């Protein structure tokens, strides 16, 4: 699904990722942990295609080099980033925006676009499944949403857009236990042999609810250790310092 080779990324001449290697196969869920400033969010941004980074190395998604593919095209190819800080977009109705997004993705896949009724049925189904109040979708995109609502909205968007490679950038930060369970439920119910996940987190807490296949430790722009679920528990006890 995703193959990253010797990825280096810098912004404003500051080097952040310094030779990162990672392979994610279909159906796998990888967690990336690491101290503040280790490059976790940069990795998420670079994978999503955000401008402003100088990049070298390779990022192959389903065998295709992503380097020259812009953000929106990556999304239409099935890459989804749940933001650490979802942006507030005043005046943009969440439903209308999401319907336009979904239809542009469906169109690029050669699928039939959904009409309003079909779309409303879909969001009803997905929001009920996650236990999210669908009313948040009739509001302006993330405007005045609580931290928890923003994150839940990201997961709901993920469910509706139905991507293949899902990157969660600290989606668990700032969530209470109930919201955390909704996020976990959204991820777990989406897991199948075709979807892959890259879950960026600071805490093992989320990994109690989402069982990763692999856990990687990112430090100073490189993966310095890879293990299974137990590695996260170990880190929770010992911290990152010991690894350096």
């Amino acid at each position: 699904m995703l193959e990253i080779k010797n990825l280096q990324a810098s912004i404003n001449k500051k080097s952040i990722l310094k030779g990162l290697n990672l392979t994610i196969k279909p159906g796998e869920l990888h967690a990336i942990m690491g101290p503040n400033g280790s490059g976790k969010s940069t990795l998420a941004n670079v994978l999503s295609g955000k401008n402003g980074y100088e990049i070298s190395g390779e990022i192959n998604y389903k065998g295709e080099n992503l380097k020259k593919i812009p953000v929106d095209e990556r999304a239409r190819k099935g890459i989804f980033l749940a933001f650490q800080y979802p942006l507030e977009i005043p005046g943009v109705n969440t439903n209308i925006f999401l319907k336009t997004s979904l239809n542009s993705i469906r169109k690029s896949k050669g699928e039939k676009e959904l009409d309003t009724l079909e779309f409303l049925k879909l969001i009803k189904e997905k929001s009920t499944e996650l236990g999210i109040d669908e009313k948040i979708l009739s509001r302006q995109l993330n405007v005045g949403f609580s931290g928890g609502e923003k994150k839940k909205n990201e997961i709901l968007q993920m469910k509706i857009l139905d991507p293949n490679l899902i990157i969660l950038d600290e989606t668990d930060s700032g969530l209470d236990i109930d919201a955390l369970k909704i996020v976990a439920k959204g991820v777990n119910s989406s897991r199948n042999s075709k979807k892959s996940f890259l879950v960026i987190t600071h805490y093992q807490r989320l990994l109690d609810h989402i069982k990763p296949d692999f856990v990687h430790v990112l430090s100073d722009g490189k993966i310095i250790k890879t293990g299974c679920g137990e590695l996260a528990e170990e880190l929770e006890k010992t911290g990152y310092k010991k690894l350096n």
Partner: protein
Amino acid sequence: MQIFEINSTQIDKIKKITTEEKSFRIKNLEFFKSTGFPNKRLEDWKFSDFKGIVDKNFKELDTIKAPSNIKKIDLLKDFEHNYILLVNGNLHASNFDYEEKSKIKINSYDKSIDYKISKNPLICLNHALAENGYSLEIDKDYKFRKVLVIYNLFTKDIKNKILNNKNKIKVNEEAELHIIEYTINESKSKFINNVYENIILEKNSKLRSLCLQNNKSDGIFYKFLKNKLSLNSEYSNLIFSSGLKFNKLDIECDLTKENSRCNILSALFLNKNEHQEIKTLINHLAPNCKSNQNVKNVLCSDSKGVYQGKIYVKDIAQKTDAYQLSKALLLDDNAEFNSKPELEIYADDVKCSHGSTSGNIDHDSLHYLMTRGLSRKDSIKFLIKGFLSDVIEFIKNPKIKKFIESKLEKQINEH
């Protein structure tokens, strides 16, 4: 360069005027002749050099009365409405089928000369030469059932003309009126439209007005709006004008009695070669009055937007609540926005604030929308619509709101 000549013989040609009116017109004409068109050396025109614009666009100009014959126009079908049809500013037809006709007075232009000599050359030119326009008066206690659309049609045969029009709207005590000024341009050539509009709102009355264009125009538009608000009256003006080579709206609002309220909002989308200015002067002359201004500009290509807004609070106007905000979204490096907010306050117990921002599309917001599969172009459209949305939200009638939204959508899509 003298591109046109006017003298008092043109005033002689105006029919049925009293000696007093004639002398008023001549006085104004003399003033205009002494100054000419306003240029950027005048503070009020520093961002819109009218003389420069006239010199650039016209080799000759004439003030001969424009013809006002037309066969037929297509009325809007989006919502039920009454209408007035102006052809080149001249009152051509009216229809008040939804209303009690006895409560409405409609006439050709306001002949009153109860105006002070202005320092504004364009107002003087208007006072000197205007002989077209309309005068509308709504009787006490009468509330309009349907909106009144003022179709403002400019015909093909007005090349190089200056059309001076004078309008008056009087809403008497407890009456209510909602108007949409809808400009239709058939003229492919350049002309100048210089309008003086006088609005009088009596005690407890309400006037909501909205303006927009059907299509693009090479015309040069200037409109001076003089509003006088009485006790507990309410005036709102929503400006959606677009597609005009040059347009300046000069709005003066006198809040003369307690609890009068005024709202001026605009959502402008300016395209290539377009230049629009909104200039306001809100005079808080009595206590407990409220004014709100929210001017939004989206500027593409080499367009230019200007907002000059002044709030004046007289010493007796305690408990004034005045707010002013202008925001510009610049989509191009060559687009320009000039903003000049001014507050002049002589009362000590008031709430007055102003803010002005201008900036480009927010890249993080753009990235967020694009990560959901929207193209860059669609994402920008969403951000533009979002930026202008709070002005649209002010429209309460759902059909009119939909109509305005589709017009704006069209402009944004054409960009």
